[in-house]
């Protein structure tokens, strides 16, 4: 039994949109260095979980712990400075800022100009297409390029924990593979990843462990490989 503190933990978190309950008591743990996938049907609460962690959706009860400390009442804009960063669903790059400006916003809270410059170069090495388009407005990029920009922007904050919401959505298979290769690489460099995906197969292939969400509750938790082999999961989410 490991007694390592999880780098991110949710304990019985309940959150709501107005009067509609979205999360009905979610508990999950993420350990440093892992890739944890959250899968489930549409409306199960996967995106809400990430938004609740980031305090965009307020947790009504329960605890959200980051590096052991309760972050329920920490303002959303403080979290990136603590190393917790989200790439939300739908890419959400700033459409009327250029690629470079978008990246700069990713590093908004950082003061080390030299470090930022280096990171921009590193990010361009990872995503050469972005270097080509660096003076272009974000809104003029293709879907795949926007996804890359969104991820690159997140990397600019030098995150310790990266929350990814549906990175594969709307992308061609080749691009999806690219994205997931990059996720793997980021993880190998030490970033903990929490991955929300509707494409359960991809999500579990890339992950160490997985959680299955159903209408605001965690219904299953296991190693990713075990989930992939689980007949119920295969039937419900892997299309068998």
């Amino acid at each position, binding site marked *: 039994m490991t007694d390592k503190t999880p780098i991110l933990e949710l304990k019985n978190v309940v959150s709501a949109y107005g009067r509609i309950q979205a999360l009905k008591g979610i508990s999950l743990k993420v350990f440093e260095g892992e890739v944890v996938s959250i899968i489930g049907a549409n409306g199960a609460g996967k995106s809400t979980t990430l938004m609740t962690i980031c305090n*965009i959706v307020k947790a009504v009860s329960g605890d959200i712990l980051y590096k052991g400390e309760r972050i329920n009442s920490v303002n959303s804009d403080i979290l990136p400075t603590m190393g917790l960063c989200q790439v*939300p669903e739908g890419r*959400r790059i700033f459409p009327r*800022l250029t690629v470079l400006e978008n990246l700069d916003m990713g590093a*908004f*809270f950082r003061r080390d100009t030299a470090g930022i410059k280096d990171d921009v170069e590193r990010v361009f090495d990872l995503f050469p297409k972005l270097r080509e388009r660096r003076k272009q407005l974000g809104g003029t990029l293709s879907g795949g390029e926007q996804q890359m920009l969104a991820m690159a922007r997140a990397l600019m904050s030098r995150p310790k924990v990266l929350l990814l919401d549906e990175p594969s959505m709307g992308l061609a298979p080749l691009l999806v593979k690219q994205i997931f290769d990059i996720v793997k690489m980021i993880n190998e460099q030490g970033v903990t990843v929490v991955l929300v995906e509707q494409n359960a197969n991809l999500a579990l292939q890339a992950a160490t462990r997985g959680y299955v969400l159903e209408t605001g509750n965690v219904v299953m938790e296991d190693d990713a490989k075990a989930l992939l082999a689980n007949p119920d999961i295969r039937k419900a989410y892997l299309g068998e």
Partner: protein
Amino acid sequence: MDFFLQQLINGITLGSVYALIALGYTMVYGIIQLINFAHGEFFAAGGYMGVILISYLSAQGLHPYACLAISLVLAMGYCALLAMAVEQLAYKPLRQASRLAALLSALGMSIFLQNGLMLTQGVYDKPYPTEITSGGFEVGAISVSYMQIFIVALTAFLLVGLNLLVFKTRIGRAMRATAQDKVMSALVGINSNRIIALTFAVGAGLAAAAGIMVGLYYGSVNYTMGFVPGIKAFAAAVLGGIGNITGALVGGLIIGMVEIFAAGYISGEYKDVFAFIILIGVLYFKPTGIMGENVDDTRV
């Protein structure tokens, strides 16, 4: 032809003033989708602070140009602080409330500020010292006053400054990012409350400068001076495309010129009506304005 050129000069002068006020409306609407009804009062307050400071400083024996420069800066600063206070008190608590509530709160603030000016400064026009403002030259049959040149020059200067702020600085990028996607900007670490406060401050500062210019140009200020120019400036902001900074400039110049030309060629008494007609026309035919809107249309 001379008449036309004269009107052109007058129109550009007036248009510059409207543009400066319009910027405040457009920036605030771009970032929190609120029509700041009280914005016209920042314009008026600026005009008042200008004459208060200029009178005081020149009584202390300062050179008129120094008086003007210092008063300009201080008045802009004062209105910036005023705007931040109003935002914190009357708008921030209503960010999640209905648009109607925010609009009415703004309306209440507008009336409150206007009457605050009246109670502290009196109901009568407050005259501006005219030594600084007199004089001009002729080019043929066209007269250009130094004041007109000053207004256009100062507007240009402030616009360049604004441009630098918004497009070349990091905080300016943050302002644009927040206006485009408030949630995402929080997720990258931008404190939207501070950015919104800054937006109000900058907008009010520009309006204050416009207020001083108007005071110098017409020779006096009055506590009601914010109402009609406020509506016209809003019309200008909408005409140019709400949320769009270049649009505010374009809209302001157009409204200013239309007003002057209409007064000159059609009717002097009904000149105010033309701005309203343009406003209604734009909102009816092309609500996104000439240069297109620039507002946050994303939600969580």
